[in-house]
């Protein structure tokens, strides 16, 4: 199987074939032999060239996959070759278009600072969410106009809920 894997935004071509003991693989054309065992869900034990790595997988709130080796965390996106083109097009569209501001954690909306129609700067506070005894200001990711405020003061939100849109 061939994949395009983005690690921290850098693209790598990965070829993965199962072999007798583990995998025969190529990363960016370089052959790599791996001895791999899954020791628990989301935990891989990998031996490469005599060196051992423990790789763990988890998902961020925004659905990003993270691979953790040692105490280092890598954001990873795996693309199946078939969906490559359409995904790329979609990704390009998102950056240019409206930015959705998503609740990074469940909590309560304690204050709505910006109103629909406001012109805001990047890093300007839009909404204050309270969780775990702390108030957290959610900031605009970019300069633009607030086209939608999706929450009211006092309402409860879940992680991933839409808070606002800045265009």
């Amino acid at each position: 199987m061939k994949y395009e894997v983005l690690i921290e935004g850098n693209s790598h071509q990965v070829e993965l074939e199962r072999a007798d003991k583990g995998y025969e693989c190529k990363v960016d054309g370089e052959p790599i032999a791996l001895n791999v065992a899954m020791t628990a869900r989301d935990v891989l034990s990998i031996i490469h060239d005599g060196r051992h790595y423990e790789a763990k997988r988890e998902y961020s709130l925004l659905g990003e996959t993270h691979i953790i080796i040692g105490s280092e965390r890598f954001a990873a996106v795996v693309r199946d070759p078939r969906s490559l083109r359409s995904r790329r097009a979609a990704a390009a569209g998102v950056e240019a278009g409206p930015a959705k501001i998503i609740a990074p954690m469940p909590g309560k909306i304690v204050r709505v600072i910006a109103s629909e129609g406001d012109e805001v700067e990047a890093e300007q506070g839009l909404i204050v969410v309270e969780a775990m005894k702390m108030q957290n200001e959610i900031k605009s990711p970019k300069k633009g106009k607030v086209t939608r405020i999706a929450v009211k003061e006092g309402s409860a939100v879940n992680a991933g809920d839409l808070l606002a849109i800045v265009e």
Partner: protein
Amino acid sequence: MFKRILIANRGEIAVRVIRACREMGIESVAVYSDVDRRALHVRKADFCEHLGPAPASESYLNIPKIIEAARRSGAEAIHPGYGFLSENAKFARACRDAGIVFIGPSPESMEMMGSKTKARQHMRKANVPFVPGTDSGLKSAAEALTVAESIGYPVMLKAAAGGGGKGMRMVTNSKDLASALESAQSEAQRSFGDSEVYIEKYIESPRHVEMQIFGDTHGNVIYLAERECSVQRRHQKVLEEAPCSFVDPDMRRRMGEVAVQVGKAANYCNAGTVEFLVDADKNFYFLEMNTRLQVEHPVTEMVTGIDLVQLQFRIAAGEPLPLKQEDIILRGHAMELRVYAEDPDNNFFPSPGRITRLISPSGPGIRRDSGMYEGWVVPLDYDPLLAKLIAYGENREQVINRLRRALVEYFIGGIKTNLSLFRRILLHPDFQAGRVDTGFLDRLLKEPPLADERTARRTPIVALAAAIFAQQPPPGSQPARNQDGLHAATPRTAVPMQDGTKLSGWKAAARNEGVGR
């Protein structure tokens, strides 16, 4: 000794107190709110009492409900832990009125230390050095100006009832003073229902060092050891250690004697902590007293060999202190890391949610005081402290190495935690040299993260791991696996059925999965 103790708290500290109970053959009573039915402290206790809905005001802060739970369960004493009702004199008095022993100081001592201005008045009487400034609330901006002139700028305005950085303002010159006073007073009123604000000299980049003391009901007070607590973010401690490398034996003795003097002035009994600010010239000033067991008590336990919670029980039961000052000998070094459910890569936003995977460190010199377990959902209603990772060793360097090793082993999946921050702290040359003050962590966070020379070597492995993971079924499903535990990327060959027909590999996998559930 008590037969049964109720713990009016939750999380890791409730678990810590339950453990002390069990070791002494005391029965423990846990209390819990609606969202904590599955919490670890409930699972560890002998008896459990439900309090009410999640908000603390209707559960862990609700005095009548907790007194009622103690009565119902037949507990003779209540341990308040830290936070919640631990420094609430009304609660200590309600316990006394109900004939239940409050494991802590008297309500009178708590009241004396609860107001920072009252505490300063007592310290002045007892000749204890404190940060120059007023020992009563400011009556006017004119008074603030006069005092600020006499002690010199910069100055700090602080709420008398304060804590957690609320009602606090740093002022560098006279023209900002009046407006800062006004806003500090209104913030103090909003946060604590008390607008009293006093003024003190701002000590630049001080160290925050505190002294553990213990008093009994027979008038004895001793000091145990100091703790270095300068590694803080937004007045929240992140890492503590004992002893403090900046404090020499003579300074330790002088600080200890002052702390004992503070304790005696407050007629103090049970565990307490006297906080000091220490400047670069090793001058130390009384800051405040915490009338409870501290989060960071384990580092003192490690270097003194004394179980502080068990000692609290003995003192509360009326026993005299079993140790004299000269019996306290410090040995080795200890450090504690506070593991919070917050995201260091995203402004330290809280990160409640389900812990999908928990791999805990162990081995030489490692202690974990934890309130979490794999599969538990961290509620969003309370403090984000999940666990404390504590290391003990012969010396500071060994402790740092042990913690670095333990951090490689530690993994908390599903939620964000501040674990990655500790690697940066422990590797920082200033930290390794013991050069820390309360500004250390803010300075570190402004530096670009350390480049890891292993990143380049790891990247192709990460790319392959990501692809291998992508071939695995989504979390929650448990299909058939090969010997290496990996899901086959292609369906297996057909499996012969007993009736002679053949079942496709996918179907067999699906059936296995059904059985697995």
